């Protein structure tokens, strides 16, 4: 029941995620020499003591952009992830818990949404919106990504539904809302937690994809927008690696760490997947004969 149950993978993943969070949320408060939009140099100045990661096509400090861009990307990711998880859990729980026609209807709708490639919907909605605030973009990302969570949660809910404690709660007079909130959802929390992590990682990547296409949040900087400008102003051709490598690395690192966090959480909540524990357990008997063998070479030495 202690921290020993967490695998090394979990700590590595959580560490990276925490580092990126710190960088996005705390670093802008610490490093305040430059602000977003300050022109600190020329076109693609090399990294220097003045601008740690050089400047971009407009002479803005890349490091400053990176901090604020990470903040925007994380904010969109977390908000979109939370909304998508909420929607997915609501639809999935209702469908799984009620069953019958409600389930058929909701899941039919979910499958229709799943069948439409979400990037197309994303692009169309983003074009339709004149100005896109961070929050609007998060909502747009959320409404296109909840369906698979709904489907997965439905399966969980319909299995929890048959448990005896629900009958007991019904006999105590608990209403449907109370049953769903206190008897069904808490039993799926581990699952919902993992779904949220995946949704955040999906939203961060989708935001980057949209921004790279020039459909990102207006009036700000995000990791995707940095990549958009870097590509549009030929940083790749001119070898200005500092313009595109840092945002790419951060995005990769964040997405990778979130996926790893999810899979190590899965391992924690689902004992059948604990390969480390199994390996350790099978390794132990193999290690046992060692102390027995040890006296032999000692005897040979004498």
């Amino acid at each position, binding site marked *: 029941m202690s921290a020993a149950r967490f695998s090394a993978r979990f700590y590595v993943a959580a560490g990276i995620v925490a580092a990126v969070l710190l960088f996005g949320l705390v670093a802008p408060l610490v490093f305040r020499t430059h602000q977003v939009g300050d022109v600190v140099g020329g076109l693609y100045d090399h990294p220097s003591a003045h601008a740690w990661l050089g400047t971009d096509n407009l002479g803005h400090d890349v490091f400053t952009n990176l901090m604020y861009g990470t903040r925007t990307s994380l904010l969109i990711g977390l908000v979109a992830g939370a909304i998508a998880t909420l929607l997915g859990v609501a639809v999935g729980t209702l469908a799984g818990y009620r069953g019958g026609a409600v389930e058929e209807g909701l899941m039919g709708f979910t499958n229709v949404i799943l069948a439409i490639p979400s990037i197309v919907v994303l692009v169309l909605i983003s074009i339709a919106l004149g100005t896109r605030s961070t929050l609007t973009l998060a909502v747009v990302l959320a409404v296109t990504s909840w369906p698979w969570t709904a489907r997965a949660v439905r399966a969980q809910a319909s299995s929890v539904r048959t448990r*005896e404690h629900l009958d*007991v709660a019904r006999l*105590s007079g*608990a209403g449907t809302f109370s049953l769903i909130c206190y008897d069904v959802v808490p039993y799926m929390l581990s699952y919902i937690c993992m779904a949220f992590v995946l949704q955040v990682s999906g939203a961060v990547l989708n935001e980057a994809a949209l921004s790279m296409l020039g459909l990102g949040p207006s009036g700000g900087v995000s990791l995707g927008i940095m990549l958009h400008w870097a590509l549009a102003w030929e940083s790749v051709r001119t070898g200005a690696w500092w313009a595109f490598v840092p945002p790419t690395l951060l995005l990769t690192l964040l997405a990778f760490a979130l996926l790893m966090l999810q899979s190590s959480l899965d391992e924690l909540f689902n004992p059948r997947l604990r390969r480390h524990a199994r390996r350790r357990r099978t390794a132990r008997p193999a290690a046992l004969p060692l102390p027995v063998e040890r006296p032999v070479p000692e005897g040979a030495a004498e």
Partner: protein
Amino acid sequence: MSTEPTGRTTPADDGSASAAADAGDALVVGEHLTRVFGRGDAAVRAVDDVSFALRRGEITTVVGESGSGKSTLARMLLKLLPVTSGRLVFDGADVTDRTDTTAYWRQVQAVFQDPFSAFNQFFTVRRLLARSRRLLGAELTEARMVEALEQVGLAAGDVLGRYPHQLSGGQRQRVMIARALLMRPSLLIADEATSMLDASLRATILNVLTDLRDRAGLTILFITHDIGQACYVSDQVLVLSRGRLVESGPAERVIFDPRHDYTRKLLADVPRLHDTG
């Protein structure tokens, strides 16, 4: 074993509707109760044309092997499962299609088989009991919770603040009975309530049930696969096989003079507890 009322009425052994004839002092009467799952070729008649009467202040046991329809019958009586056809009468009123379950559940309560999965693991005993507020309203007081726990031999101070994983199996099952008693029901359905307990705890729970009948006059429907337990507690026995009622009658008669082959088979499978001579 108290079997005084047996002289008066004896439900027909073939399990026909005549069981409902003694509806006079019956709390619950089931007439031709049937429950079908699925439809078409896949239809399963889990409970098939079962008629019976549960007399007030008696323990009636339903015996049958797994899949005989015992739990389906219990769920229908609890109104957790709609009846496909037939009629269910409670205290003189037809409740077959009654949708207002709030009042019904103040009268009819249940204890289930698995004393662990019946608990919401996130709730303390106090919270579990307090959930009855919707049924009981202002009647639900701390004193009433304490009283219900005392009825099953638990000290409120020991268990109220605890989570289910902090209780033993026997304590958990007694808390479940206390939860049911909190409503002061007139019918308690114990669906395999002793099956997952070890032998000594089983006797404790059975004694709690017989005590409730003798002291509080509670009507109890006891469901078990173990005809030995039926013999220990019950006044009336109903034998279910594949959803059909194959034999019913006073406990002593059914156990010591079984008339249906299936009942004989069930009895033959029991490790010998009595000399059935």
